[in-house]
C-alpha cells in the first residue's frame, strides 16, 4: 500500500520527468526551488494536468496508458496556494460543497474538523471578509471534509506573512499527527519542511533528484549542495530534564544528549530538533573553555564539496544520528577529516521545531 507514480510532461521550455514512491502514511514534502515543477507534479497527481505516465494510489490505478480518472472521481483533497474559496458561498457552504458531493465514503465529521481548524466563529462569513490565514484554514477543512484518501497541499503557507504562518503551522502539525491518510506537501521553505515532513522528495529542474525519510535524506552530503544555507540535520529527541534556573532543557536522542532552550515541552515529550550545518564546527579534541554548550563525540562519515570552492560539507555520526557540518576546505584538511576519524562536534545552535 503506497503511492507510486511517474509522470512525463513536455512543455515548451520545461520538462517534467518525475518518479515517486511514497509511504501510505505521514507527510511527504516535495521540496525545491520555484519553477522546479513541484506544483506541476502535484497537479498531475490530482489529474488537473495530463502528462504521460502512471499513477497508483493504495493499489488503485488513477492513471495508466489507457486510463485517466478525471479529477472529480479521484478521492483526494487539494489545498491550493491561493485557497480558492467560492466567493458566492459563505464559509459553512464552502465546507459543505465537497461534503455533500462525497457520497459513500466514511464521513470525517464536520464538527471535529471545524473544531480542529478553529472555524466555529467564521461559518457565516463570506470568503472576502476572511484574512489570508483564515481562508487557508477554511480551504484545508473543505478539502478534509471530502473524506480524501490522499491530501495534496500546494504551498498552503506561501502567500501568508510570517505571523499568519505561525498561526497555521500548529494546525498543520495537529493534522499531521491526527490524520490517517498520506499528505503530499509542496514547499520551497526548508523550515516548513523540517517542521512538518516525515518523508521528503527533492526536485530540481523538473526532475525528482532524491527521496527518502526526512532525517536520512537531509543528512546526505550530496544533497546539501542544493539546500545551501538551509542544509542541516533534523531528528527526534525526548525531553529528559528541565532546568528552571537557566531556562534550559536536556533532550536525549539516539547517540547522546543536548541542552536546548526550554520551550515549555513536558518531560518525556517527543520533540523535533534541527541543527543547521553552518552552526556545527569540528574540533580535534574536547574544549571546555568555549561558550559552546553542546559538544558531542562524533565520527566523520563522509564529506563532499559545497557550491563554493572554499567550503566542504561533512557528515558526522553521533551514535545512530547523522549531523552535518559545513566548514572551510582548509580547516577540513588541517584536521585531516577522513572518514572514520574521531572528532568533537561543537553545536552552536539547536532549533526545537515542535
Amino acid at each position: 500500500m503506497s503511492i507510486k507514480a511517474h509522470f512525463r510532461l513536455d512543455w515548451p521550455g520545461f520538462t517534467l520527468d518525475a518518479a515517486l514512491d511514497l509511504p501510505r502514511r505521514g507527510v511527504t514534502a516535495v521540496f525545491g526551488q520555484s519553477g522546479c515543477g513541484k506544483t506541476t507534479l502535484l497537479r498531475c497527481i490530482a489529474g488537473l494536468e495530463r502528462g504521460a505516465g502512471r499513477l497508483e494510489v493504495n493499489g488503485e490505478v488513477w492513471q495508466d496508458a489507457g486510463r485517466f480518472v478525471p479529477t472529480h472521481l479521484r478521492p483526494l483533497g487539494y489545498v491550493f496556494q491561493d485557497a480558492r474559496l467560492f466567493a458566492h458561498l459563505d464559509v459553512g457552504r464552502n465546507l459543505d460543497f465537497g461534503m455533500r458531493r462525497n457520497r459513500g465514503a466514511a464521513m470525517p465529521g464536520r464538527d471535529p474538523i471545524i473544531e480542529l481548524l478553529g472555524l466555529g466563529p467564521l461559518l457565516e462569513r463570506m470568503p472576502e471578509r476572511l484574512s489570508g490565514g483564515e481562508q487557508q484554514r477554511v480551504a484545508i477543512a473543505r478539502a478534509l471534509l471530502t473524506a480524501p484518501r490522499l491530501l495534496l497541499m500546494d504551498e498552503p503557507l506561501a502567500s501568508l506573512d510570517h505571523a499568519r504562518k505561525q498561526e497555521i503551522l500548529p494546525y498543520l502539525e495537529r493534522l499531521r499527527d491526527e490524520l490517517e491518510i498520506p499528505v503530499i506537501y509542496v514547499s520551497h521553505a526548508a523550515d516548513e519542511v523540517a517542521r512538518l515532513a516525515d518523508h521528503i522528495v527533492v526536485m530540481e529542474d523538473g526532475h525528482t533528484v532524491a527521496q527518502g525519510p526526512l532525517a536520512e535524506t537531509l543528512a546526505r552530503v550530496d544533497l546539501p549542495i542544493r539546500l545551501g544555507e538551509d542544509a542541516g540535520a533534523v531528528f527526534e529527541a525526548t525531553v529528559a530534564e528541565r532546568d528552571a534556573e537557566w531556562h534550559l532543557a536536556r533532550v536525549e536522542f539516539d547517540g547522546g544528549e543536548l541542552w536546548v532552550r526550554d520551550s515549555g515541552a513536558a518531560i518525556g515529550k517527543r520533540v523535533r530538533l534541527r541543527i543547521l550545518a553552518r552552526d556545527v564546527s569540528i574540533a580535534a579534541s574536547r574544549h571546555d573553555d568555549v561558550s559552546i554548550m553542546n559538544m558531542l563525540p562524533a565520527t566523520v562519515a563522509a564529506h563532499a564539496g559545497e557550491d563554493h570552492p572554499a567550503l566542504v560539507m561533512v557528515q558526522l555520526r553521533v551514535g545512530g544520528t547523522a549531523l552535518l557540518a559545513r566548514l572551510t576546505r582548509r580547516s577540513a584538511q588541517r584536521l585531516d577529516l577522513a572518514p572514520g576519524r574521531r572528532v568533537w562536534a561543537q553545536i552552536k545552535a539547536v532549533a526545537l521545531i515542535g
Partner: protein
Amino acid sequence: MLNPADLAAIWLTCKLATTTTVLLLLIGTPIAWWLARTRSWWKGPVGAVVALPIVLPPTVLGFYLLLLMGPDGAVGRFTEWAGVGLLPFTFWGLVLASVFYSMPFVVQPIQNAFEAIGERPLEAAATLRAAPLDAFFSVAVPLARPGFITATILGFAHTVGEFGVVLMIGGNIPDKTRVVSVLIYDHVEALEYGQAHWLAGGMVAFSFLVLLALYAFTGRKTR
C-alpha cells in the same frame, strides 16, 4: 393618449423581447461558455459571426434572414417541411430574427463573466468531487451572475429597440408584427405627431431607466 393599437404594439413588443431574451439566455450561455474556454481555431470566426449584428446595418441582416426564411431558403424549406409554414411576416419569424440581432448583447457579457472567473474555481470544484456539469451550475453560473444580469437587460432592451430587421422580416401587421418602433414610424408617416410623442417619449424613458438600472447595478458590483 395611447389608443388600443398602441397598447397592442406595446404588448407585442414586450412579448417579443421577453421571448427573445429567454431563448437567447438558453442558446447564448453555451455559446458564451464555449467561446470563453475554447482554445480552438474556431473561436475567432465564431466570435466574429456572433458580433456581426453590432456592425451590420439591420437591413442587411434582415435581407439575408428574409431570403433564408423564404420559400427558397434553407430555413424556409425546413419550416415548410416541418408543417409550420413560412416564418416571414409572423411573430416567430420576428423572434428568430431578433435572436440573431440581439445575440452579441447577450453572449458577450456572459462570455466576459466566464472569462473573468477563469479556470481556478472550476479546478477547485473538481477537487471537491463536482462533475463538470455540476461545477458549471453550482460554481460558474452563480459566479457569473453579474454577467447574466447585464446580458438579460441588454438583450431585452436591444430587442425592444429594433426597427430595421422588423421592417424587413415582419412588415407591419397589427397584433402580429407591428411593434412599437414600427408604429412610431407609422404615426409619423400619417402626421399623427401626438401619438408618436407618447410612444417615442415612452421609449426614451424606458431606455433611460434600463440603462440607469444597469449602471447602478454594475457600479455597485465594482465598488
